[in-house]
């Protein structure tokens, strides 16, 4: 009877402890420490981090220990007559040499890990990553897959009008899909200003610099969705351009590649189709929400002077060919308008132009002309 009670008590205590240490404590620990990550490199980096951390803690305990001891033991009350010593060559030499040796001890594993990270050989899959204000473009060099990855968190969530979702600011419309167990090489650059592509779980942070191509590589063994961010101040929406990578088994990756290729083929077909104003308007509204609202705002009023208003703009109301040109080529540098010719397909460009020419009572005040995907194809043809 008594024994039984003890056992059940023990059971309770141990389950309590397990609960405390497994879920609670470790969840909390994750919130305040570096991630161990999911690659061999990220685990090495984590170990370096913990090693240098504990070295600092030990030194801190010794130095602050002596300091606090002196603070309590040698107050004026307890020690009215201070000592007069003021140098000691041996001690001073010791505390110059010992820290130096600790540093050498630390530098060796750090240098080794760094050398591994700098292995620059070709990958099984090469993905070019291009930073734009404020989105990422991914090009799979072998498979000719090419897409942009935009934040999908709703503006209403950001402005506290609706509750924030689980992956607030860490969710995108198109994730980077990679197969597990393959060496993936990222070729990182930028289109406008400097960005930085950070994936904590792979311990990769590499600046994306216009005019340069930086490389980084990883081999991910564990399937899963991993989330990172842009870490170089790149303007207004620097906080709103996350990185999401999904590692999947090889067969799943293969079918993803197949789908992507079919999608591209379908878009080519759709470009040839005859679009109505309503179809274009509807699609354009979505394109606008995804690509344009950050600067030109939902109401089309923009944020003058850098981001001009579209509602009531003379070009948007009456000059369709100039508007196509602006969208395709961008306007800079006084205005921060990007060249969308490379970012959006013909359908989306035509749709968003049609949308802007018919939204915010622009149609009533202007010519209300629609622009079709074929117009954009014509624009792209070489001019003689």
């Amino acid at each position, binding site marked *: 009877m008594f024994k039984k009670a003890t056992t059940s008590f023990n059971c309770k205590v141990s389950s309590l402890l397990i609960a405390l240490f497994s879920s609670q404590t470790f969840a909390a620990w994750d*919130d305040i420490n*570096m991630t161990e990550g999911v690659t061999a490199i990220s685990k090495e980096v984590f170990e370096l981090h913990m090693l*240098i951390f504990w070295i600092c803690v030990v030194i801190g305990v010794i130095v602050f220990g002596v300091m606090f001891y002196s603070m309590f033991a040698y107050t004026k009350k307890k*020690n009215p007559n201070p000592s007069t010593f003021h140098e000691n060559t041996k001690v001073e030499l010791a505390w110059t040499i010992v820290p130096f040796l600790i540093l050498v001890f630390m530098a060796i594993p750090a240098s080794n890990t760094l050398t591994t990270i700098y292995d620059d050989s070709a990958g099984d899959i090469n993905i070019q990553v291009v930073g734009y204000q404020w989105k990422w473009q991914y090009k799979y060099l072998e498979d000719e897959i090419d897409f942009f990855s935009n934040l999908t968190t709703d503006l209403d969530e950001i402005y506290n009008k609706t509750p*924030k979702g689980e992956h607030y600011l860490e969710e995108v419309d198109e994730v980077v899909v990679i197969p597990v167990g393959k060496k993936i090489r990222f070729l990182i650059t930028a289109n406008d200003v400097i960005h930085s592509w950070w994936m904590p779980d792979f311990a990769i942070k590499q600046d994306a610099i216009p005019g340069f191509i930086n490389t980084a590589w990883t081999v991910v063994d564990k399937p899963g969705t991993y989330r*990172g961010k842009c*870490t170089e101040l790149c303007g207004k929406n620097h906080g709103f351009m996350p990185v999401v990578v999904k590692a999947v088994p090889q067969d799943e990756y293969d079918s993803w590649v197949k789908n992507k290729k079919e999608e591209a083929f379908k878009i080519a077909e759709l470009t040839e189709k005859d679009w109505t104003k309503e179809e274009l308007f509807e699609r354009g509204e979505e394109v606008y929400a995804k690509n344009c609202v950050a600067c030109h705002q939902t109401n089309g009023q923009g944020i003058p002077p850098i981001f001009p208003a579209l509602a009531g703009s003379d070009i948007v109301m009456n000059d369709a060919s100039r508007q196509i040109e602006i969208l395709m080529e961008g306007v800079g540098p006084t205005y921060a308008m990007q060249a969308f010719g490379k970012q959006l397909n013909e359908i989306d460009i035509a749709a968003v132009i049609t949308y802007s020419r018919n939204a915010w009572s622009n149609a009533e005040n202007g010519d209300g002309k629609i622009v079709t995907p074929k117009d954009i194809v014509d624009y792209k043809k070489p001019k003689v």
Partner: protein
Amino acid sequence: MSAVIESHDHEHHHGPAKGITRWFYTTNHKDIGTLYLWFSFAMFLIGGAMAMVIRAELFQPGMQIVEPEFYNQMLTLHGLIMVFGAVMPAFVGLANWLVPMMVGAPDMALPRMNNLSFWILPFAFTVLLSSLFMEGGAPNFGWTFYAPLSTTYAPPSVTFFIFSVHIMGASSIMGSINVIVTIMNMRAPGMTLMKMPLFVWSWLITAYLLIAVMPVLAGAVTMMLMDIHFGTSFFDAAGGGDPVLFQHIFWFFGHPEVYIMILPAFGITSHIIETFSRKQLFGHASMVWAMTSIAILSFVVWAHHMFTVGMPLAAELFFMWATMLIAVPTGVKVFNWVTTMFKGSITYETPMLFSIAFVVLFTIGGFSGLMLAITPADFQYHDTYFVVAHFHYVLVPGAIFSIMAAVYFWIPKWTGNMYDERLGKLHFWLSFIGVNVTFFPQHWIGLAGMPRRVPDYALQFADWNMVSSVGAFLFGASQILFLFIVIKTVMGGKKATPEVWEGARGLEWTVESPAPYHTFTTPPKVTQ
């Protein structure tokens, strides 16, 4: 250092001029020191108010108070104002007040230039702050103003920013020349270089750093100006330029710059700890060598700010090793301070409290600095809140605590009145708690993955951001108390003796309190 005055001067002196023109025309090092200190205090409050805006926006996830573009202007101006407007002028103010008195000189060597170097500063900051009201807003590219965000993609006010940085640079260079000439030529007989007080030593080294790197900063902003207005492509890849070049130039200035903001603090801390331990500073000579080594090393570590720009392996290794080396002389300084306290006879007046907090918290900032030096780990730390925590630990409870300690320590000498010890201690404890509650959790949210310079963040960072903001509000509010204490002391209080502190060492404690308008018109003789 201990000194004996063999000749006091008893000549009749002219006092300060009457009215407001006293402050415009003054060439007196004490008046100019006062101007610098009040100016930096004003900038500290303005830059602090901007920090409050930043922390208020970060109190919760989501955008509540400001828009992202204004947020970026706040973080840029906060950095620029705190670095160039608050910390640097405060140290120049302290140098003006103290260097001539500490070396037994009647004034700074170049008094008119001294006036000029101060009076161009208010113009520089008026220009900078006025950019807030310009079309397109104030500079929004961070205090490090990386090209091409600060050139091709900058708001039009960037030109005013460049002009303002030029003026600040000119002011710093003039101030440094003045300090060097004063120290080299106007020391009292018998004061050899190695007998010089450590604050003077720290400023001599700082002044050389300033002269070496301010022109580099001027070069960087001039190249920006050329890129923006005159069609060059120094930093524009499309024109054959190199955006990374900007970072190399900036950090060749920037790294010595961060030591410019901490070396005078080393000097101040050394004086205060030896005074309140009633024991001569341990290792005066090794302190001098440590500061000199730190200054020299500061020129060969700049690229540790750039580990992620894609430098070759050899460069990464070199900059990692060189950066780690800095821990050696820095360690020597900390060990010397602790050993000075060991077997001392310690009391805990406000300056001592601030200085002890300086040693502990600066050391914590040093530890995170050592962690950041480990390049592979830096790939994870870089541009996260871990870095924000690191440099605020060395700058706020580092540089700024040392300035506050200095104010409490020397204000009886400046005003002739003792400050209110009870309020001083209250100010210390509020600041101490505030600073740690603000910045310690930032280590954690940085490690957990929150990037710096973002106006909004993912939900897992929410709790500690809220704690950090609460700490910031406490720290911010307690500086109003500091302002009150300083004004109260200027207005009156218990009269101070010439020595002020029981364990005081150094020439400045041999003159009356308040220090007469002119001191040491006849140089004192310094014997050991």
